């Protein structure tokens, strides 16, 4: 007999396998293979089973192992460890599933199941002969992170990562961090003052020694891989020097420029030099070049004359800076859906129809009316208010999904109205009120019990202007079984939300997946990996990853941050061992494999005067798309080579 090379371990799994498959017959058949030695065990995964496996591998001097048992998914790590202990490379193991794929599915056909088990074990033996010892390479990680988007999600993630001792580059496209939460007056269901709980965190970001804040900046490009991303950041010119400005805001006073105030959702005007809102962080104004008289017409410079520290600098051109990070958090948030698209609700046609975010600004003490609830353009207080829910949401023509915050926002907005104008009447038009969060139902009850608050069960079908300036909101009321029409003088639309253009920009740079209906970023797995993405080292959180309220956003941001911290504090990444390998002799440099690789893992390099493909093992995921595409049989995945697959296929029926 030739010297044994391949150890084959057959597991009975009690009667799970042995109750159907005749293990003795299998062992007899396999023993006919000259270079195979066979052992069987009642429970190979028991301590005793693994122990005997280690001993048998050692004493028999085999150099390949086949385990015929159950699923590689659950048991491969255990048996790989046994090989390691027996001083064999763990990738010289091949598992054959004779339980889930054989004994359990052919219970009534013992004879045939046994025959099948023999065949698939033989195929595995054929394959394992050509397995090579593999290793996971350790690659270094840059101990820094990039956070894109400075809403509450990005703020929370940045603070968590920075608190763990890592450098964080926080990039925000607007002049201030804060995001949409800064626009809210109060937050449901507790009615906390939004900026009062957000402001301290914004200041913590500004003062944190580990956070480098880049506001009024955008990510231009990202290259590299987990552990080593090279990020280019565009710093837009502020025309105000951040190193000199003391935030006194004297410059703003005399500025003659005038533009629509984006922060106040178009309800007021701002100057050409401005800060978006009083609590802005950093407290450094920006000059909007489109409205600045000096930049547009070459006259004025009054801000420059007023600035006591000479911080105004019209020569700024902005610039691109480069940073290197090991991990990335995308927290680019959401935008309100364009309410004018839902023409039947009359948004942008009637001045007394506003969106939920506009109402937030109207109710806010630092909003356009300093917290007085008046109808924009009309200058008087409303007396009868309709709040229309699901505007664009859960509507096949617009957004098929639920915005998750509209119902609660509508209740909160009712409270705003009743708080500011106790005598006003409020009608909420809603199919239903979804109040499933913590404390939500209680809040719903509290609002319902307020006087002169009516919940109309039925989606509003139309908002129509009347000649006297009032509005009629029509809906089908299923309780009454007929259409109703209610005359009001003010309408608030709880508009659905979408991932913003900012999210789309980052998605394109990082090649992230999105849900097509909404553009929200796609997680690696909806249940088990909600903050990871298909790109290693890139995490998502907050409203960019799907409609969310603030508590969920914060929880997810901390989850993403903890993933980053885990990665960065390990200090290295291990590559996955099943990478593609190029046979440079056979490769013709045709580049077809480059086009099918979704991970940009293949590039063309020069070898001895010829162009050939080269696989970056840090990026390769071992999917094998390149294998299928190669017309020259020049690329294969390690331990699942072309020959290995072909021989396996042939062996089954030999």
């Amino acid at each position, binding site marked *: 007999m030739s010297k044994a090379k391949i150890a084959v371990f057959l597991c009975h799994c009690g009667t799970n396998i042995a109750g159907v498959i005749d293990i003795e017959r299998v062992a007899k058949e396999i023993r006919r293979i000259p270079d195979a030695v066979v052992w069987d065990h009642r429970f190979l995964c028991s301590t005793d089973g693994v122990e005997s496996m280690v001993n048998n591998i050692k004493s028999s001097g085999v150099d390949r192992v086949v385990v015929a048992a159950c699923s590689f*998914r659950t048991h491969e790590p255990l048996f790989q460890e046994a090989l390691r202990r027996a001083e064999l490379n763990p990738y010289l193991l091949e598992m054959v599933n004779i*339980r889930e794929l054989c004994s359990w599915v052919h219970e009534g056909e013992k004879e045939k199941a046994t025959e099948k088990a023999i065949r698939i074990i033989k195929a595995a033996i054929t394959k394992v002969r050509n397995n090579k010892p593999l290793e996971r390479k350790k690659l270094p990680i840059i101990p820094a992170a990039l956070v894109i988007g400075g809403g509450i999600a990005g703020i929370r993630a940045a603070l968590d990562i920075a608190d763990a001792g890592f450098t964080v580059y926080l990039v925000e496209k607007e002049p201030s961090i804060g995001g949409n939460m800064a626009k809210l007056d109060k937050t449901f269901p507790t009615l906390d003052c939004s900026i009062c709980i957000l402001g301290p965190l914004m200041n913590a970001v500004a003062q944190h020694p580990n956070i480098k804040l880049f506001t009024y900046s955008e990510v231009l490009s990202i290259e590299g891989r987990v552990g080593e991303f090279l990020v280019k950041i565009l710093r837009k010119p502020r025309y105000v020097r951040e190193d000199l400005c003391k935030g006194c805001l004297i410059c703003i006073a005399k500025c003659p420029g005038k533009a629509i105030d984006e922060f106040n959702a178009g309800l007021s005007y701002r100057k050409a030099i401005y800060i978006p809102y009083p609590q802005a962080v950093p407290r450094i104004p920006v000059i909007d070049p489109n409205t600045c008289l000096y930049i547009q017409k070459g006259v004025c410079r009054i801000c420059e004359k007023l600035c006591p520290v000479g911080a105004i600098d019209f020569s700024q051109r902005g610039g691109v800076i480069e940073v290197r990070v090991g991990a990335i958090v995308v927290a680019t948030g959401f935008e309100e859906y364009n309410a004018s698209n839902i023409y039947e609700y009359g948004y942008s046609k009637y001045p007394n129809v506003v969106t939920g975010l506009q109402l937030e600004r109207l109710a806010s003490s630092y909003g356009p009316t300093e917290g007085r609830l008046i109808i924009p353009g009309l200058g008087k207080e409303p007396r009868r208010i309709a709040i229309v829910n699901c505007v664009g949401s859960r509507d096949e023509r617009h957004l098929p999904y639920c915005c998750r915050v509209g119902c609660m926002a509508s209740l909160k907005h009712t409270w705003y109205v009743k708080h500011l104008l106790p005598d006003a009447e409020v009608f909420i038009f809603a199919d239903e009120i979804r109040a499933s969060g913590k404390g939500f139902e209680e809040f719903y009850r509290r609002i319902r019990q307020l006087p002169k608050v009516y919940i109309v069960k039925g989606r509003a079908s139309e908002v129509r202007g009347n000649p006297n300036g009032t509005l009629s909101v029509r809906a089908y009321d299923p309780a009454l079984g007929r259409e109703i029409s209610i005359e009001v003088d003010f309408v608030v639309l709880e508009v659905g939300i979408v991932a913003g253009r900012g999210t789309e920009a980052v998605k394109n740079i990082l090649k992230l997946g999105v849900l*097509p209906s909404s553009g929200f970023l*796609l997680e690696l797995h909806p249940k088990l990996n909600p903050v990871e993405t298909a790109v290693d080292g890139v995490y998502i959180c907050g409203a960019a990853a799907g409609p969310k309220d603030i508590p969920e956003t914060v929880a997810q941001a901390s989850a993403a941050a903890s993933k980053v911290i885990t990665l960065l504090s390990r200090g290295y990444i291990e590559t996955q061992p*099943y990478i593609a390998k190029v046979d440079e002799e056979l490769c013709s440099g045709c580049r077809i494999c480059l086009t*099918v690789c979704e991970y940009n893992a293949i590039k063309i390099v020069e070898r001895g005067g010829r162009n050939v493909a080269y696989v970056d093992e840090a990026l390769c*995921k071992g999917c094998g798309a390149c294998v299928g595409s190669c017309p020259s049989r020049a690329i294969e995945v390690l331990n699942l080579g*072309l020959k290995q697959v072909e021989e396996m296929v042939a062996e089954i029926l030999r």
Partner: protein
Amino acid sequence: MSVEPRVLVFACTYCAYAAAETAGVSKLQYPPQIYIVRLPCSGMFKSYYVLKALRSGFDAVLWSGCHPPYDCHFINGNYKARVRATLLKAYLKQLGFEDERFRLEWIAAGEADRFALIAKEIVENATRLPKLRFIEYREVEVK
């Protein structure tokens, strides 16, 4: 030697193979003439593997992967498989193979019953097919 049909299944690790394993856990019974080869992703599609299987004596081949559009663990390997499988199907037809010899299916990890159903169906169809016979040829060593 039995004259029963033999069917080879190429299954991607994350969906189709997982479905096959789940079928096992659920004890869903299907004919033992099914043999499964696990690949990382259906996008590893290589027509040669299918041809090799038919040449080696399998009566039919099933290539299986994750449902489009989003189930694929490797972003869009399933689309790559679909493109190549369509070409192969046309080619097999020209070569004179019956349509039932080769099939492409999307099977999610949870669709154990679907896996078992397809397994039954494909064996049943293969039973009605004549045994393949190949005329002698000289093998070309490619590697």
